[in-house]
């Protein structure tokens, strides 16, 4: 490897790592937290068959699963900006990622809820607990265990999707690599370098997921 390329890559290391840690990771964590909250609420509304809200949930899932994330980003950042609701690129990114991934996660949580035998809910009600108490203490904890692997998938997907937020001017990790390519014209080396960063972060998430799954497994099977 030429010395020039080596120097570019070492410069790239810090120039990508810093926005990676300060933008990409917070974007992922906040976006996924939002997605998770939305997912549980939307899944419960459907599970409980709440009239009206149930239809609203289906509409939400239909729209946000049926349109591209990139288009959603443009509508929420540029579109809302035009009609007077100016969000910072970071806030627009968190919102869009959360609402978008929330639609997918809601389906994961809903199917997990529906996989819990109805006898669990009946048993809760028979010991005098209310519907909500049973959901919170018996059904949701079991459903979360089932939903954990697909939710882990969604988390990793979101980490990678944060790269799209560069298109609404947010200086995250992928934007940093694009700028370096613009300056040095070494697309192969620099884009591979940023790919390695994404791989590194997603590997950490995978390990976390595996650890979490093991912890949640305590009560299942011998």
């Amino acid at each position: 490897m030429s010395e020039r390329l080596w120097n570019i890559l070492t410069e790239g290391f810090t120039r990508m790592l810093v926005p990676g840690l300060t933008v990409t990771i917070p974007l992922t964590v906040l976006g996924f937290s939002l997605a998770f909250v939305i997912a549980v609420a939307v899944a419960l509304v459907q599970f409980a068959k709440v009239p009206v809200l149930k239809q609203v949930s289906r509409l939400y899932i239909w729209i946000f699963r049926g349109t591209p994330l990139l288009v959603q980003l443009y509508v929420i950042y540029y579109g809302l900006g035009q009609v007077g609701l100016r969000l910072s690129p970071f806030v627009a990114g968190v919102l869009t990622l959360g609402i978008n991934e929330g639609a997918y996660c809601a389906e994961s949580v809903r199917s997990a809820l529906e996989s819990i035998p109805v006898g669990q809910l009946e048993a809760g009600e028979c010991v005098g607990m209310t519907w909500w108490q049973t959901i919170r203490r018996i059904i949701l904890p079991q459903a979360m265990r089932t939903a954990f692997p697909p939710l882990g998938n969604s988390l990793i997907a979101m980490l990678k999707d944060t790269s799209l937020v560069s298109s609404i001017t947010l200086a995250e990790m992928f934007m940093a690599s694009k700028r370096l390519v613009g300056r040095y014209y070494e697309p192969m080396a620099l884009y591979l370098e940023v790919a390695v960063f994404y791989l590194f972060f997603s590997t950490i998430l995978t390990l976390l997921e595996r650890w979490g799954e093991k912890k949640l497994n305590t009560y299942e099977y011998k």
Partner: protein
Amino acid sequence: MLEVRELKKSFRDQEILKGIDLTVEKGDVVAVIGPSGAGKTTLLRCINFLEKADSGAMTFDGADYDLGNMKKKDILSLRQKTGFVFQSYNLFRNKTALQNITEGLIVARKMVKEPAVAIAEEMLEKVGLLDKRDSYPSQLSGGQQQRVAIARAMAADPEIIYFDEPTSALDPELTGEVLTVMRRLAEEGMTMLVVTHELGFARSVADKVVFMEDGQVVESAPAGEFFAAPKTGRAKEFLRILDRA
């Protein structure tokens, strides 16, 4: 203590319960028997509101209720006075044996933890499973799970415990240990309404037998009388077939 009058229930256009009358006196063990599809389980589920009855009246502990039109508040308070044991146990899978019992006490009855644990341990001791207090349901045999489920039903000190074919999912060996627990419970004076296929249990433990067929109570009599000389032809035939098997 419990009286049910004219209980009716249909699923779609099929009538499952065609007007059931049933009385359970305090301290009695009432066995509900009859062929599959008679509506025995539906009866039990309607009395505990797991299914909504179409119509009917109920008197529980002196208070009257309209089964076709129950208030949520009444359902909740009645369930705190009753225990329910399912055919498929339905222990909370994410809770240990002990937690399965304390859960209802702490969450539904707002008991503090220490006395709840003390009660749970006492109940586990009664069903002979204190050593399994920290086991999860998946680590217990079917018979053990059902015994924990009975302990859970007993813990709230209910006025009556409903049993829905409590041994039907168990092999004969495990059936014995569950029936032993139920027998002891009956001896202690617990009021029990038991849907069962165990005629031996009904014969030796029950005070009263209710024979159901096709959504109706065909015959209702003290257990001794019923088994010695059933009055209706259908009950006679039912007993004959089962005795031969």
